[in-house]
């Protein structure tokens, strides 16, 4: 049984109601602070005229980015075959790694394996990219590389959870949920956190769950990894057209019945906000069936835009469609949109064929997304994040494969106030270990900072203490800021 009456700071809990009824009024003290923003003293404050949990909220300091599009490459793309160029790996192909492998490995690996792809410098910045990403490489001056990323978990499930929620040990809110909680949404007719074709494995729903944050901040999935993007929908979205009017009358009746005060006055006051929030979710659902189909109507784009995203090519159409959906959702004000290129990048063997195939599916759509955001003037305020849950080892597995490598990998950001044409952090000469290190917690702290949120002040009280996306860690990489 779900208890609808639990907020601690502005609404009396059931226990508080009982205490108050028994004369213990102290239980009701201190309930005026807003329940949805665990900040004490200075900091963001909700517009007092609105108590809607998704109302836009002022960040802690001036934001560089307003929203995020996360292009998640599930499986673990290889840093040393894409953007982290290592000449010594090429030179020492077939030789043993000249230093120790990690004490904890996912599986045994052999000697060094040179990248099968040629690297070249691109753009004015002269940053390196391999042949795997020819279209993205043309826009390299827009990219801000994080090259010394590292995590702790060498298995997909734990690494996905750590990347999405900051924790591989406990169920924690997704970064999208934290960001929505911190900033609210710009469009009251759409969910504020949408994940397009997410994977159901490796943590599954926990990767877009709000955990202990209120359910309002949970990610709304459109389709899942097992569904082609062309068939990805928000489930149960629309009523039959002939029932639309009836549905309005039904929702009015529901509101009328829900708002009728129960006989018990104490209970009535405890219920009010919870019931209003519930009614608000029905109203959002009602508006969404009008708004969401239009926002997700890819066919309304012109042919030039469709081909910019590769919708006219079998190889790129699926991820291209996801990217185009992401642009449309983001443009409509959805705070955090994730697109998953699902569980394809896990090349323990067959690296050459499969990494090439994977890259060919996403390279053009990603470049198209960056171009499209830029020409619409949206790139400045939209932070695009690219990467997987970990990288891959420079040492070989199964002849032509690489193992998981959480000890050093690459992600990149673009737009959203990041410094294009720059790179931050580094790995060793073979790309195995992060040297100038950026932990996943540091990535989260940096993302929040770009959005104007202080990762140490974005807290939520749960189970007796304040929680953060970055737990007790996180260092902001300010050098990545424009």
């Amino acid at each position, binding site marked *: *049984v*779900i*208890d*609808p009456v*639990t*907020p*601690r700071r*502005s*609404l009396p809990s059931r226990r508080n109601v009982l205490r108050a009824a028994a004369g213990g009024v102290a239980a009701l003290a201190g309930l005026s602070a807003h*329940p*949805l923003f665990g900040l004490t003293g200075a900091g963001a404050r909700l517009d007092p005229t609105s108590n809607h*949990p998704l109302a836009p909220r002022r960040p802690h300091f001036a934001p560089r980015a307003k929203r995020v599009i996360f292009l998640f490459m599930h499986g673990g793309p290889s840093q040393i075959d894409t953007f982290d160029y290592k000449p010594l790996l090429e030179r020492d192909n077939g030789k043993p790694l000249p230093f120790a492998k990690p004490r904890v490995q996912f599986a045994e690996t052999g000697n060094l394996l040179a990248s099968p792809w040629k690297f070249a410098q691109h753009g004015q910045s002269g940053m390196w990219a391999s042949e795997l990403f020819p279209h993205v490489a043309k826009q390299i001056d827009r990219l801000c590389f994080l090259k010394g990323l590292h995590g702790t978990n060498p298995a997909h499930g734990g690494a996905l959870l750590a990347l999405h929620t900051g924790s591989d040990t406990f169920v924690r809110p997704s970064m999208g949920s934290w960001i929505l909680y911190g900033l609210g949404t710009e469009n009251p007719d759409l*969910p504020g956190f949408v994940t397009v074709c997410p994977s159901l494995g490796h943590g599954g729903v926990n990767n877009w*769950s*709000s*955990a*202990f*944050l*209120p*359910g*309002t901040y*949970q990610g*709304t999935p459109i389709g899942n990894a097992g569904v082609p993007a062309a068939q990805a929908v*928000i*489930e*149960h*979205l*629309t*009523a039959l057209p002939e029932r639309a009017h*009836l*549905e309005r*009358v*039904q929702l009015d*009746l*529901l509101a*009328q*019945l*829900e708002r*009728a005060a*129960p006989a018990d006055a104490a*209970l009535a006051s405890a*219920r009010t*906000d*919870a*019931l209003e*929030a*519930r009614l*608000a*979710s*029905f109203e*959002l*659902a*009602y508006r*969404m*069936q009008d708004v969401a189909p239009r926002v997700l109507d890819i066919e309304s784009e012109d042919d030039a835009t469709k081909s910019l995203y590769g919708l006219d090519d079998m190889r790129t159409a699926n991820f291209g469609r996801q990217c185009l959906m992401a642009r449309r959702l983001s443009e409509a004000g959805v705070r955090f949109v994730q697109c998953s290129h699902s569980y394809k990048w896990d090349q323990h063997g067959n690296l050459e064929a499969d990494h090439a195939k994977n890259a060919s599916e996403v390279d053009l759509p990603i470049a198209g997304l960056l171009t499209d955001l830029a020409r619409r003037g949206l790139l400045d305020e939209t932070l695009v994040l690219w990467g997987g849950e970990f990288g891959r080892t420079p040492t070989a597995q199964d002849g032509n494969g690489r193992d998981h490598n959480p000890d050093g990998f690459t992600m990149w950001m673009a737009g959203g106030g990041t410094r294009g044409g720059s790179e931050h952090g580094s790995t060793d000469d073979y790309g195995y270990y992060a040297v100038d290190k950026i932990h996943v917690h540091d990535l989260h702290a940096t993302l929040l900072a770009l959005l104007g949120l202080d990762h140490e002040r974005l807290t939520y009280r*749960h*189970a007796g203490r304040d929680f953060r996306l970055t737990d007790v860690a996180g260092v902001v990489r300010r050098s990545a800021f424009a």
Partner: protein
Amino acid sequence: MSIDRRPNTTIASQALWLMHSPFVTENAAELAARVTHDAGDDLDLAIERLYAAVLSRTPNSRELSTARAFLENTSDFAALAHVLVASSEFLFVP
């Protein structure tokens, strides 16, 4: 699904499920067919039976007149049953 505090109990996708899923609409229709069949031509009795079936109580006079007004407007008893099934009183402890 979420835990601990729930000041914002449901999210839109849960509301969409309650509004549009065949599971909910079909059950509401079957429920409506059952109580209207049992009550014959007596509309008030049908509404009372609906409340008894869904909420295990009788409607108060205001609820009765609200329901009657809804049925005069829509002539759709299944739609009334659907609203009660989507109500917080049915789904949650009040």
